[in-house]
């Protein structure tokens, strides 16, 4: 279907975008890559009176690798994230996740920030943000605030962003442990489709192969992507032996709240959550051990 009528404004700076948001508030939506917003408008699920286009704001497109985090402009395209070798070296989980995000045509347009604010429970980048404890910088005319991913995602397609706020920057933490490994996987009907369940993990080990730090989470199995910091903490000091992994995956499976739809039943999603969590933890551990 065609989108309903709306008024269009092309913002040329973050200040202008924030001023337009302050003027139109919940009558307006920001449009970045539009890969989720435009279909929702075509389905008439959204009828904003104004679209404020932030695609031409150069100040929202950058990838800067710093000592302990990569700072990324919210309007950075997914294809630019995919191709950036410095980013892949600093936060390898992102490139691993991006191979599952849509298709070439959608990644050429889709943005990092767009995926996060859309907050689809099965989307890959929100899961990575949750698992790595990314920080999100929100800007409005009244100032800046920075939220941890855990307090940003509130529910399915629901975030803590206020109607007059623009996500301007994502800070992806870098793990400085020398032997670090990460893994991402998901199950979907066809490659590039929405995940039924996705899982991501990152693990660091010492020279004896003992886990010194771990994080993991699953997407598509609750209204928001879930990370399990307490369960991951239990793996520290182990070599991710079978029993340790099984116990942690079991408890993760108990903590998810998946829904049922035509693609997968809740019980199948719950099963997948455990299987995929085990798989990514094992694979992240193996690549951490193999790291020089």
């Amino acid at each position, binding site marked *: 279907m065609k989108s309903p009528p709306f008024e*269009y404004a*092309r913002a040329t700076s973050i200040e202008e975008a924030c001023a337009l948001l302050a003027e139109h508030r919940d009558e307006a939506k920001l449009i970045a890559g*539009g890969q989720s917003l435009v279909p929702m408008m075509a389905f008439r699920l959204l009828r904003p009176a104004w679209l404020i286009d932030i695609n031409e704001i150069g100040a929202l497109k950058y990838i800067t690798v710093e000592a302990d985090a990569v700072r990324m402009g919210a309007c950075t395209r997914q294809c630019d994230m995919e191709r950036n070798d410095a980013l892949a070296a600093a936060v390898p989980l992102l490139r691993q996740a991006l191979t599952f995000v849509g298709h070439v045509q959608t990644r050429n347009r889709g943005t990092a920030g767009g995926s996060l604010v859309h907050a689809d429970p099965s989307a890959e980048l929100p899961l990575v943000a949750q698992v790595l404890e990314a920080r999100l910088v929100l800007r409005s005319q009244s100032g800046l605030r920075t939220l941890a991913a855990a307090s940003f995602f509130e529910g399915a397609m629901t975030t803590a962003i206020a109607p007059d706020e623009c996500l301007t920057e994502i800070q992806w933490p870098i793990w400085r442990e020398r032997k670090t490994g990460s893994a991402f996987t998901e199950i979907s009907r066809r490659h590039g489709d929405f995940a039924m369940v996705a899982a991501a993990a990152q693990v660091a080990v010492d020279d004896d192969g003992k886990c010194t730090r771990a994080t993991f989470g699953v997407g598509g199995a609750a209204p928001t992507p879930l990370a399990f910091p307490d369960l991951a903490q239990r793996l520290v000091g182990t070599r991710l032996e079978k029993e340790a992994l099984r116990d942690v995956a079991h408890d993760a499976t108990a903590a998810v709240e998946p829904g049922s739809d035509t693609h997968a039943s809740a019980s199948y999603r719950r099963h997948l959550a455990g299987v995929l969590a085990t798989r990514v933890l094992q694979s992240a551990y193996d690549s951490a051990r193999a790291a020089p």
Partner: protein
Amino acid sequence: MSERLYPVTIEVNGVKRTGQVTARTSLVDWLREHLNLTGTHIGCEHGICGACSVMLDGAPVRSCLMYAVQADGHRITTVEGLAQPDGNLSILQDSFCEAHGLQCGYCTPGMLIAAQALLDENPRPSEADIRDAIGGNLCRCTGYQQIVEAIELAARRMAGDTK
């Protein structure tokens, strides 16, 4: 209700085109309805099928997921822009004919754009590269195998390998 019109200047297949569009006019509708460039097809209109793929500043995108007003100041290549200047088919297009890479033809413009973008970046793609590049384009005639073969043939021909 009369909707506001926005002026646009968009370079389409090397020619500057101007127009007045409503904000909600999709890029594909503008190309087809205003410029009569009907080579680009409209399939699902919500970003699933890939039939409407065009190149935006050289990179393939879905023209149903962009409003024409957003393309103001940018460069678009449609399937019409792939042909040689004298109107003859490009090597890629001819390879689709040669290898029977189309049946009903509905997905073909999107397939050609996706394939051209791949070959622009990677002149020697593997079969896996090709399948990944057309992964966002649906063909309902079960023709993927021959589409893949057509792109392989085009890559060989462009590399000067005539066999």
